[in-house]
């Protein structure tokens, strides 16, 4: 059996925070910190920045908790704040650098092609795995912030279309369309790079 604190639902803690009890935010923090860390890491991909960004997200959530109206789950509401915060961060980061898919190294390209072949054949070697991971990371890093957000929510965070729609405040059909476009753009850029080689 869990401790009494873990048995109290989120809604109760939220009400207490809304009434000015700051300490009631701690259980909410404990309960949702992993979710926020995972989302931040997948979106930003910088281990050294995750804690700072997560702190800022929770501070924003605390300050805005009076506006939380219990319509979406607290997790979804918090994810929305996290996504918006990371989106702004990515926009700032991307403004600061100019990089394109075709800047990916030749070696990396060979690795991902070899890895794709191995995928159809069976298991990957450790080396192929690390190279493929690195390449996928680069592809994602070069995607526009909006594409990256939706791709991360679907491919890395494994959210359903409906969950993504709730987080991004979009209709499920819009999410499907944006997801397809983001994937397509990613592949087009990848292809463009191969043609330039």
């Amino acid at each position, binding site marked *: 059996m869990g401790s009494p604190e873990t048995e109290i639902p989120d809604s109760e803690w939220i009400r207490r925070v809304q009434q000015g009890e*700051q300490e009631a*935010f701690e259980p909410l923090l404990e309960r949702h*910190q992993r979710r926020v*860390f995972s989302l931040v890491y997948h979106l930003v991909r910088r281990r050294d920045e995750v804690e700072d960004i*997560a702190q800022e997200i929770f*501070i924003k959530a*605390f300050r805005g908790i009076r506006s939380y109206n219990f319509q979406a789950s607290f997790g979804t509401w918090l994810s929305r704040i996290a996504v918006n915060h990371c989106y702004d961060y990515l926009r700032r980061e991307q403004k600061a650098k100019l990089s394109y898919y075709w800047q990916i190294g030749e070696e990396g390209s060979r690795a991902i*092609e070899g890895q794709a072949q191995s995928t159809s054949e069976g298991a990957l070697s450790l080396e192929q795995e690390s190279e493929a991971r690195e390449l996928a990371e680069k592809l994602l890093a070069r995607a526009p912030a909006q594409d990256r957000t939706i791709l991360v929510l679907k491919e890395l965070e494994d959210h359903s279309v409906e969950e993504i729609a709730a987080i991004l405040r979009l209709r499920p059909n819009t999410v499907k369309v944006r997801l397809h476009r983001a994937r397509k753009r990613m*592949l087009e850029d*990848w292809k463009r790079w191969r043609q330039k080689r």
Partner: protein
Amino acid sequence: MRCEEFREAIEETRSRGVSAALREHLGRCAACAEYARDWQMVRAGLNLLAAEPVPEPMLGFARRVLRRLEESASVLASREELLERAGRRMVYATSLLVLALVLMLVLPTTGPVRAQASAELFPAEPAVVVENNPLLLDDSTANPPLAPSPSAEKTGKVTQ
């Protein structure tokens, strides 16, 4: 089905599995077959990224956030206090100014200082020159007696 719809289906193959229609289309359409291969490559990389361990919150993360909240609350409180103090001073200053204005209006403009000040602020209106203004001239000035003619001087009569 159009190629675009097949491509959307290709992207979802992980969850659904390749349908017979899609397999048939991939056999006929080289562009869609290439799209499928490329997506397979990218997805394999993304799957590896998803499986990567995520950084765990360090011990005491929640406490650190709460401390930051307390700190920012105290900064906010001191800022509010400062603003309140400044606001209060502003109110006092405005009240004093209003009082001074009221006093200026109410008190009679007597005494050497007030008289001098009011003389500077409201200088006396210049005397209206009535000499040649027919509207302001009284009867005596408007119709001055004509100068007696030399003959009248003699007779003592005044011609009109």
